[in-house]
């Protein structure tokens, strides 16, 4: 690079830029032999040269981060071999497809109860629960009525397996008709409202319905 000026070499028009070599050396932080004060001053007023320094540092950070987090060969091999498994086909339309039902297991309850069938919300205060059904995790947060008398708020998230566009139904326990129905957003989030009662929550995925049973609210 020699005396070639950095930004000029990168397509800028001004002719008062430091050399590219100096900029790259400055970007590494090893500044011995450089006139750092004039470089620093230049960089505060020259977006082109500041961009060069920033991009060089971005590349350095990426290369260093990757070196520390390179997946082990066996991990990569496992991921590659996923393709050898049979992948679920695109789901058929609902009316053609027999739908399995899977009872979700309660694995976390901020109130301490671990029996799904007893997962009630009597009393006040918020409650967080986590259910797992096969490989799907469903988080549920139940809030007692605050602004609207008698109306409880249910916020939840279906994990990335189910991701977006799942339908979530709140039905009276043991019944099929939805009291409230909502579609998850692109983060798998959903929000429902319901009066006190005993419900099942149905998370409808393309090939399976996950059932969170016996939710007694209020």
């Amino acid at each position, binding site marked *: *690079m*020699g005396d*070639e000026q950095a930004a000029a070499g*990168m397509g800028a028009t001004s002719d008062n830029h430091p*050399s*590219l*070599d100096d900029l*790259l050396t400055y970007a*590494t*932080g*090893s500044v011995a032999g450089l006139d750092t004060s004039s470089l620093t001053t230049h960089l505060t007023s020259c*977006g*082109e040269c*500041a*961009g*060069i320094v*920033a*991009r*060089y540092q*971005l*590349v*350095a*950070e*990426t*290369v*260093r*981060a*990757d*070196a520390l*987090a*390179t*997946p*082990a060969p066996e*991990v*990569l091999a*496992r*991921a*590659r071999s*996923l*393709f050898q*498994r049979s*992948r*679920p*086909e*695109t789901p058929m339309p609902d009316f053609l497809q027999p739908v399995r039902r899977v009872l979700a297991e309660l*694995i*976390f309850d*901020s109130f301490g109860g671990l029996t799904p069938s007893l997962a009630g919300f009597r009393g006040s205060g918020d409650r*967080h629960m*986590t259910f797992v059904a096969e490989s799907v*995790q469903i*988080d549920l947060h139940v809030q007692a009525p605050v602004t609207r008398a008698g109306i409880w708020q249910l916020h939840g*998230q279906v*994990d*990335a*397996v189910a*991701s*977006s566009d799942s339908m979530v139904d709140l039905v009276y326990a043991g019944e099929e008709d939805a009291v409230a129905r909502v579609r998850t957003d692109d*983060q*798998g989030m959903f929000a429902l409202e319901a009066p006190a009662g005993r419900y099942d929550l149905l998370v409808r995925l393309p090939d399976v319905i996950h059932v969170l049973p016996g939710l007694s609210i209020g």
Partner: protein
Amino acid sequence: MEVSDAELLQACRAGDARAWEQLVERYGRLVAVIPRRMGMSSIDADDVFQDVFTLLWRHLDSLRDEQRLAAWLITTTRRECWRRLRRAQEHAELPAETPADDPGLLEEIARGEREQAVRQAMLRLDTRCRDLLTALFLDASQPDYGAIARRLGMAVGSIGPTRARCFRKLDGILRELGIDSSL
């Protein structure tokens, strides 16, 4: 010409195992870096890696925005990390943040996409430039030019000029990929 993500995804859907391997190669580091940045052990990071690619594999047919595969992987990886971290403290209070309202997510997506562009740009460089820049970046604070020159079969005096020439190429590719002064 590099095969696009959309083309790779389509090839995967058509049953092309090689396309799947290319996807794993292309995005493996992006996925691997996130759990380590979140402080997870290498064992947990490996599990997250497997989970995320399993999810990708399962969702090949339903990915809606093929142009944002990196963003999908970053979001999914962070969610998987959160899930594991929360399970690890199953009997403690859940953290206030959930992946969906994670305030750092957009920043992480922007950063991850920039870093992914760097990986793509590095792959487009010739081997000599890539090896030199990698060697210099890995030993950035006080690079041992003598050792690097010996390893790469270069004259010590040519390292500085070659670095500038190689970076100029790399920078051109980065700009083509949309990584400009607005970092």
